[in-house]
């Protein structure tokens, strides 16, 4: 095994893992605050890539404005899903909230299915992003450099928001005890809307990166990616943002490295996340960086 190939694969794993991490942050934050596995999160990522494609092809936007357009759509979508589908159920059994999330997920998939048909659409990212460049014999694209870099910047920004801003304090208070925060003069619904907006934005960024790297999008793309990202969040310890990033990177690395070095197992690519997850949970039932799951916090 040549060292250049190894480095190449590490780069691939890093960019794949960063995309999982971006999506996993949204899962972990919503779970931390509402104790809800937000099954619609993967579909928000899918909507993000479709919105970007729509802006590129229909409005003929350049790439960056299309990116911004998609982010706005996703933020609006995330907030309205919370308002319409989750907010009326705040005091209901968690299972009905979960079923509603599955319903929202079906709704979004089939909405795109009706609007854009179920055939996969080609996604043409700007060629400057995806054209391969040679760097010390390693073939990579600009995208492979941008994705991890941007993910690190975003992660630092999210951590700064969580630990240094007033919103962050409120979010952590909400994750700690949702019923007491109202007494402290915090508008819980506003904070939850903020969490949804932030999570949807990150999912949208992840989705557009995904579409650039694997340039075909279809209405069901978000389901499996979303579940794997949720697996990543659980692996890292749900409720912990750092854990979500760690879990995402581990799963991305595993997928890329196992497929590269044991090609016979390539068919099980989508299962590694879960096999790995089961093993970690057997030894550490709350994930790598997780605390007691009854009172997980950021």
């Amino acid at each position, binding site marked *: 095994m040549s060292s250049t190939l190894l480095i190449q694969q590490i780069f691939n794993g890093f960019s794949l893992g960063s995309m999982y991490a971006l999506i996993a942050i949204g899962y972990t934050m919503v779970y931390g605050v509402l104790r809800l596995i937000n099954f619609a999160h993967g579909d928000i990522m899918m909507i993000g890539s479709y919105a970007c494609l729509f802006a590129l092809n229909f409005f003929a936007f350049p790439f960056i404005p299309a990116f911004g357009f998609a982010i706005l759509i996703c933020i609006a979508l995330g907030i309205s899903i919370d308002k319409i589908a989750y907010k009326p159920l705040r005091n209901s059994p968690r299972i009905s909230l979960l*079923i509603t999330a599955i319903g929202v997920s079906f*709704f979004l998939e089939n909405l795109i*299915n009706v609007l854009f048909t179920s055939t996969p659409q080609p996604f043409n990212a700007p060629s400057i992003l995806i054209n391969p460049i040679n760097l010390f014999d390693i073939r990579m694209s600009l995208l492979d450099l941008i994705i991890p870099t941007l993910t690190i910047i975003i992660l630092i920004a999210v951590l700064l928001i969580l630990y240094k801003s007033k919103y962050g304090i409120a979010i952590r208070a909400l994750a700690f005890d949702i019923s007491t925060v109202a007494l402290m003069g915090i508008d819980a619904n506003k904070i939850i809307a903020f969490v949804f907006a932030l999570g949807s934005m990150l999912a949208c960024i992840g989705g557009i990166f995904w579409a650039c790297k694997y340039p075909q999008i279809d209405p069901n793309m978000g389901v499996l990616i979303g579940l794997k990202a949720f697996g990543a969040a*659980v692996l890292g310890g749900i409720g912990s943002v750092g854990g979500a990033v760690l879990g995402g990177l581990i799963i991305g690395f595993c997928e890329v490295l196992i497929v590269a070095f044991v090609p016979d197992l390539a068919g099980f690519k989508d299962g590694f996340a879960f*096999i790995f997850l089961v093993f970690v949970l057997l030894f550490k039932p709350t994930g790598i960086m997780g605390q007691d799951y009854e009172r997980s916090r950021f």
Partner: protein
Amino acid sequence: MLMKNIFSIIILILAVLSIFAAQYCLSDYALRTFINISIFIILAVSYNLINGVTGQFSLEPNGFVAVGAYITALLLLDIEAKQDQFSLLDPHPFILSFHTDSFFIALLAGGFGALALSLILSFAVFRVRGDYLAIVTLGFGIIIKLIALNFAAFTNGVQGLNEIPKPNNFLYIVGIITIISVILILNIIYSKYGRAMKAVRDDEDAALAMGINTFRIKTLAFGTSAFLEGVAGGLLACYITSVTPEQFDFLFTFQLLIIIVLGGLGSTTGAIIGAILVIGGSEWLRFLDEPMSIFGYETKGLPGLRMLVFSIILILVMLFARRGIFGDKELSDIIFKRFKK
């Protein structure tokens, strides 16, 4: 008590009569829907045992259904059919070594296969609780589907197994198995094991403190529901006459989850009504996918519209009937006013 027994017998007679009525009154298409609903009733009541009654949020019935379906299909297909159908890889000598004409042996083998798998998995999945259990079981469901997809020498990969023979009196077999499963599940729920299951659901630590072996109770519920799901998987394989990995995606699990939550989590009556409403309803909404005319305006068929409407109805039901249709009560509780809570 006497009233309750008479009531149960009346329900039983009605169920048997409805099978005969279906045989003689329904069109072919309606009969197929009837059989499909019947199979989903088995699935729903058995899934409800682990999810609703025992409160263990398992998300892998799709795995057990797939195991049952594949075992039944491989047993029922004869050697030549297997050799003909396997196109990706030559069939493994092991699967050519067995074949049975007996439908019941094939179904039972499917059930026991799923049961064995559930017993092995229970050591892994019941080490974690709550939402962690959900994601671990979901993962096992996905892994089972990937195994079906990748061990092509056993399962013929993505093309799956086709032309699975169906017995002539299929309707009666499905009907009898459905009635037996519902009676079995109800008997478990009202036995001391059922009360232990409810205790585990309501407070696992307290149940443990009261001397209930919670692991054994959870495994019992898991195994029973896996066995019935395996049998139902075999029936499903014969009903569709083919088995492919795609059928047993986690969407299958979500569909079952919707059924039992819609009916009321923990209520067997609810599971039955939920199966009828969801399977019958999604069949009824099928007209939405067809081309239609609205006020003289011809629309071309919009595939996906049916599921779109279905999901909107689902969200509305969850928003306005939060504990499902029956809550956690049974039909007899409502009729005889003997509420559990």
